[in-house]
């Protein structure tokens, strides 16, 4: 910062003088974060929010499970349970899954493609703040009326006639801001991916996680406007006398189901694509082997495309033409092919190699294990004859929760522990990570497996109590105990993330000898990411760089070795 100095008129300076107080002091860290348009800051805020919200979602799930621990419990009343259920659903989808995948992609992908910035950073920044205010709006509603119309507030129940209080308006407003915000972040990332790849970073050389970034941002750019349209229509119905979703006035309640299930199924698939790609990166790094790229990438694209087109799999009991139902069944069963290929390749690659078991790989294998149970159980859920029996029961709930806990929680911890040294500049405590993994894994199995049995016995979801004498008591009690274990494990795992930042040694830029470009940047990366950008010549640019350095060192040593005897 320069300061103008006034000189006496009589003595003009003989040469221009520059005087300065030195470089301006950096603003406080929180001011930097709050005003930053840097993709790393925005990504970190999104990821931090997601891990904070995992705790909230788990707490809400735990409270609901305490209520459902014994038959005819009176721990919570019906309204409180409905509110917890609605807020749990919104938190898990909109404040955990979505910001986690978008935040991870937004942080890592620009580094992986060797970009110094994103293409339109201000759009990402506006997106972040829309997201944050959406989240604040949801939790501020606990002071007034939280949403209480269920995880997916189906009209006409969510119309003003049947739910006149402001809960549904809060749901509309907060999900709208969150989805719009994350849509803007994805648009920024999508533009970056198409315009700012480093020289030589052709799509055929892009890392798997970068591919996931392209697939997820494209998918989100398609499904998010559908959701925004649906909630806008619901808002018009509620506040301005519209009739989009009311059956009597020429609208259709099923239109809402089509719109929202396209979105929710798309989110499910975006989550699967992101974390399968993250697990792919982890497996490649720790085993030192390359996965079959073509097969892996085509499978990811197929999951996003076919999976989202399978939305009618959620509507097998609705009065829609049977053609839609068989179509949903076909699409859902077709997913066996891409998921099967990816699981086969990941597992055989690990199986056929030597590796060091470290926290990211541990969480990655846990994620594959849990997701395999959930995805396999979805096979039955997607057939018409069984969906008419088991949909809307805890069997369906268990299948969804196995997949989503597997991918979001375990895949999320795999990804965060993998990139933890890069993001924070510190190592992660492996010991605590392993212990928390054990608790969470056991907790998830104990919490969700019995619900398959409860669902087959006929227990319907979303009800705040169940009654004894229907064969449900044991399963629910076991599940509640398991949820408590899962909760404790989660608290330990999140605590480990917080504690390791101060307690653990400083990390090197490339702690695992990874192959993609994010490991070229310092840990944590500076604002401009890279001092020098390499020419990318293969799918493993960091290995090329390491080899080039080794060659140069060898040559130097050789030169010295030749030179020495002469001296």
């Amino acid at each position, binding site marked *: 910062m320069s300061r103008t100095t006034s000189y006496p008129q009589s003595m003009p300076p003989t040469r221009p003088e520059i005087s300065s107080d030195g470089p301006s002091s950096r603003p406080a860290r929180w001011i930097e974060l709050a005003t930053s348009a840097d993709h790393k800051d925005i990504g970190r805020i999104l990821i931090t929010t997601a891990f904070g919200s995992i705790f909230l979602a788990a707490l809400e799930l735990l409270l609901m499970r305490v209520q459902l621990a014994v038959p005819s419990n009176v721990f919570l009343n019906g309204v409180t349970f409905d509110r917890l259920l609605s807020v749990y659903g919104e938190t898990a989808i909109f404040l955990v899954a979505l910001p986690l995948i978008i935040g991870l992609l937004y942080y890592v992908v620009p580094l992986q493609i060797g970009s110094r910035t994103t293409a339109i950073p201000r759009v990402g920044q506006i997106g972040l703040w829309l997201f944050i205010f959406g989240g604040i709006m949801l939790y501020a509603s606990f002071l007034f009326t939280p949403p209480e119309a269920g995880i997916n507030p189906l009209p006409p129940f969510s119309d003003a006639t049947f739910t006149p209080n402001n809960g549904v308006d809060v749901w509309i407003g907060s999900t709208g801001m969150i989805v719009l915000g994350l849509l803007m972040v994805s648009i920024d990332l999508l533009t970056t991916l198409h315009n700012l790849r480093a020289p030589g970073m052709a799509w055929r050389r892009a890392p798997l996680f970068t591919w996931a970034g392209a697939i997820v941002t494209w998918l989100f750019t398609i499904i998010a406007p559908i959701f925004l349209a649906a909630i806008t229509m619901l808002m018009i119905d509620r506040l301005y006398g519209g009739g989009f979703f009311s059956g009597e006035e020429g609208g259709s309640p099923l239109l809402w189901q089509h719109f929202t299930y396209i979105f929710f199924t798309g989110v499910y698939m975006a989550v699967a694509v992101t974390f399968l790609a993250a697990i792919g990166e982890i497996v490649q790094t720790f085993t030192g082997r390359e996965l079959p790229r073509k097969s892996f990438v085509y499978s990811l694209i197929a999951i996003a495309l076919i999976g989202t087109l399978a939305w009618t799999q959620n509507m097998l009991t609705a009065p829609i033409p049977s053609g839609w139902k068989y179509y949903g069944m076909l699409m859902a069963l077709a997913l066996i092919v891409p998921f099967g290929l990816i699981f086969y390749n990941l597992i055989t690659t690990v199986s056929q190699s030597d590796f060091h078991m470290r926290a990211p790989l541990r969480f990655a294998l846990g994620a594959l294990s849990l997701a395999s149970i959930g995805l396999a159980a979805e096979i*039955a859920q997607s*057939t018409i*004859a*069984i969906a*008419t029996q088991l949909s809307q029961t805890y069997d369906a709930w268990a299948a969804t929760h196995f997949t989503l806990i597997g991918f979001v929680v375990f895949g999320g911890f795999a990804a965060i522990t993998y990139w933890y040294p890069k993001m924070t500049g510190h190592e992660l405590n492996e010991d605590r990570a392993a212990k928390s993994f054990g608790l969470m894994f056991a907790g998830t199995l104990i919490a969700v497996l019995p619900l398959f049995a409860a669902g087959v016995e006929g227990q319907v979801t979303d009800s705040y109590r169940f009654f004894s004498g229907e064969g449900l008591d044991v399963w629910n009690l076991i599940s509640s105990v398991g949820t408590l274990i899962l909760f404790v494990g989660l608290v330990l795992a999140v605590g480990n993330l917080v504690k390791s930042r101060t307690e653990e040694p400083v990390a090197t830029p490339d702690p695992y000898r990874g192959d993609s470009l994010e490991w070229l940047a310092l840990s944590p990366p500076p604002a401009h990411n890279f001092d020098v950008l390499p020419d990318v010549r293969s799918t493993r640019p960091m290995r090329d760089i390491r080899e080039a350095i080794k060659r140069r060192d060898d040559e130097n040593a050789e030169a010295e070795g030749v030179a020495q005897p002469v001296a």
Partner: protein
Amino acid sequence: MSLFISLAGILLGFALNASSAMALSLNPDAASPGIEDANILHWILFVVILAVIVVVNLAILRAARPRTRAVGAKQGRKISQTKLALGLSVFALALFVVSTVFSDKSREIPVSTETVAGQVEGQPLEIRATGQQWLWRFDYPNGAFSYRRLIVPTGATVQLNLVSTDVVHSWNLPELTGKALAVPGKTNPVYFRADDPGVYTSRSSVFSGQGYDTMEIEVEVVPPAEYEAAIAKLRIDIQVAQDKVEAEFQAARQKADEAADQVKQMDSTTKLNETESANAE
């Protein structure tokens, strides 16, 4: 790593434990022809799913085993990706064909073996089920109706026309029909034929508000003669109740009229008195 193996033990123990409950009891009391097909499909898919889960998780465990000696690179990948994709496609297609066959069979409209009053010969017996917060109303062909409790005859195919007057409800009766949504403005027919008398209870399965957990369904299956008698009696009962209400209403109205007349008379007398007193002044 021992941790992982012990957890795998828990997993398998659980899978087998829950499996006995799952496999055997999707619907032990299936009472309509279509439900049997759903049961068979569930059995087939259950075995397939359990096999997939066990194979995948054993493979993960094997992959995560502690390495006592170096794994050589000689264990190269043997299956090509194309062959694997083809194999998986055949597997998925086979599942689709099997599921379609059984789903079609379970959706077939059963043939009536009996004909009861209000039913056209060869056509199903049409009963309308109206979902409303938080009760089901059933309208029988003879004009009788009932709430919460549905009476159907054995042997006759019943076409239950699901409608809703307020929000989306889900009809749910695992033993006879399975689930189907009642959506306002649409009619969603489900068909079943109950062959044995009995009482089946269940509850709605789509969240519909605060009374959702009390929205029970009770279906009583009785022989045709009993059914005819029951709905005839229901109609008479409704007529009697209607007459009683009508009579009470008429009585109340007559009483009100009389009271009004009295008030009128009293009014006129007071007015008379007032005019008299005014005149006196």
